[in-house]
């Protein structure tokens, strides 16, 4: 019953997401496109951090890998952006596999530091390899379509997000998801009941890196200008905040967090750099009072409602 309700709810939201932008202007459409990008980023990071317990700081870097790979191939080799996005995704998966294998024996803070270092090294390379990446100036890349159309980009991003979320949903609810959570809860015990812990960890790294690369590639071709902002720690921490505020370790939490924070950001943009302060405060309040995020808050009050209904 709960599953049916959830499916119906999701279908309704999706239908709304299909129709809604037709009524909106260019600017809200842009906000929604960016939100969809963040929803993909936060949800895939959540699989890694919330389900296997590997708190990686290299997720934005993987998005950057996807964006720059596709962008450079399009600019230097004249490759079709769609093919470029696929190659970028594959390259991000490859690097994710390598990074995951490197971090195999690491847990907790050591894994975080290693991925942080990876992220910083990549950032430095991109900023300094001016001839290839155009450094902080940004790399101008062609769009996904001949003619620029906001609404088309919106539907492309929506389709991409649905694809990514469907894969994530399937993974979380399959045997793999149980293995992921077992590894997160207790690696030694997981091993003792037959879970191939190393394989599970590397798989999570590879798959989520591919997803970040895919999202980053599409995002770059939407912006038409790829800057080191994509593989930056700013973006990484935004993804982290969205996941934590939305509800880490739940499927819907990061999606809600991505939309909530990205839309909130538009409202507080006028305060300039102070909007980071607001982000930090929101994260602080959530961590203190609702550690399970917005989704946890909702779950907490839902049973009370149903109890009242029974009365």
């Amino acid at each position: 019953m709960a599953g049916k309700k959830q499916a119906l709810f999701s279908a309704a939201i999706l239908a709304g997401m299909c129709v809604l932008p037709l009524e909106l202007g260019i600017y809200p459409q842009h906000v929604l496109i960016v939100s969809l990008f963040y929803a993909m980023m936060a949800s895939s990071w959540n699989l890694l951090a919330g389900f296997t317990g590997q708190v990686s700081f290299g997720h934005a870097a993987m998005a950057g890998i996807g964006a720059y790979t596709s962008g450079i191939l399009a600019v230097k080799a004249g490759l079709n952006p769609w093919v470029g996005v696929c190659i970028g995704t594959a390259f991000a998966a490859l690097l994710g596999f390598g990074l995951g294998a490197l971090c195999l024996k690491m847990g907790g803070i050591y894994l975080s530091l290693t991925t942080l270092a990876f992220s910083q090294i990549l950032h430095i390379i991109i900023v300094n390899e001016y001839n290839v990446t155009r450094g902080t100036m940004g790399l101008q890349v062609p769009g996904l379509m001949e003619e620029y159309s906001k609404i088309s980009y919106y539907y492309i991003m929506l389709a991409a997000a649905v694809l990514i979320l469907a894969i994530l949903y399937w993974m979380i609810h399959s045997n793999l998801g149980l293995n992921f959570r077992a590894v997160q809860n207790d690696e030694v015990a997981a091993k003792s009941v037959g879970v191939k812990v190393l394989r599970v960890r590397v798989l999570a790294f590879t798959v989520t890196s591919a997803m970040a690369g895919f999202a980053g590639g599409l995002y770059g071709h939407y912006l038409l200008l790829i800057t080191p902002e994509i593989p930056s720690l700013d973006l990484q921490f935004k993804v982290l905040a969205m996941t934590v505020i939305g509800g880490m370790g739940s499927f819907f939490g990061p999606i809600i967090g991505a939309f909530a924070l990205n839309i909130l950001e538009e409202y507080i943009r006028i305060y300039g750099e102070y909007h980071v302060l607001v982000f930090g405060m929101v994260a602080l309040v959530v961590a203190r009072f609702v550690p399970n995020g917005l989704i946890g808050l909702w779950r907490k009050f839902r049973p009370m409602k149903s109890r009242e209904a029974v009365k």
Partner: protein
Amino acid sequence: MAKIPTDEVAGGREIDKEESVALLEGHKVSKSFGGVQALSQVDFAVEKGTIVGLIGPNGAGKTTLFNAVAGALKPTSGRVVFDEADITGFPANAVCRMGMARTFQVTRPFAAMTCLENVMVAAINRYPEKSKSFIEGLAREKLALVGLVDLQAFEARQLNVVQKKRLEMARALATGPKLLMLDEVLGGLNTQEIYQAVAFIRRLRDELGLTVLWIEHVMGAIMPAAERLIVLDQGQVLMVGTPNEVVRDARVIQAYLGE
């Protein structure tokens, strides 16, 4: 009356070996941590269908031997043979798939997962090709076996110590083991619960045909339950024998009580 039982037992073991009924064997298993020799040249055998107790004073190396056998630790030297295959240094997940399941001295449930999910993790890795309904059914069956089926929807962290031990037992059973390795499952139980647990473990052997290797400090429980006891002291096998032989042995008494 002062006969030394070890010779008899050693003779008996040789016959066993010829019939090759040993499910688990250790040959000169050693493990050292830096300069500390936790296990030195431990020889032992667990015959199919028996309950074998592993006893010894604190720090004797019982849990280290468990870890070295079950893949949590790599032995420094020596050989471990399980079900006629050399498994020395195999990782825990591989050993588990071959049919060796264990519980932990300090319980290690998947705290943020429900009891049902805890057991399902074990089942899906044993039967990866089976349907979800089969896995859930199997997990429920194992939970019912240990009397936890009513708590299946509760998260493991909500359980008390005794329930956590039962959950680990259900999880171990869901891996479809031939050999069940229990690490002090009776700790923290009262007399009545100990009596039930011992009866339960005997039933597992009698009805499911499991072989049991069992570390236990509660002597009153392990003595009547086990056919044979392996006594470890300071990382070495002090003696092997029936419970009656072991309690009468002067060396065992000395190891436990001192001079």
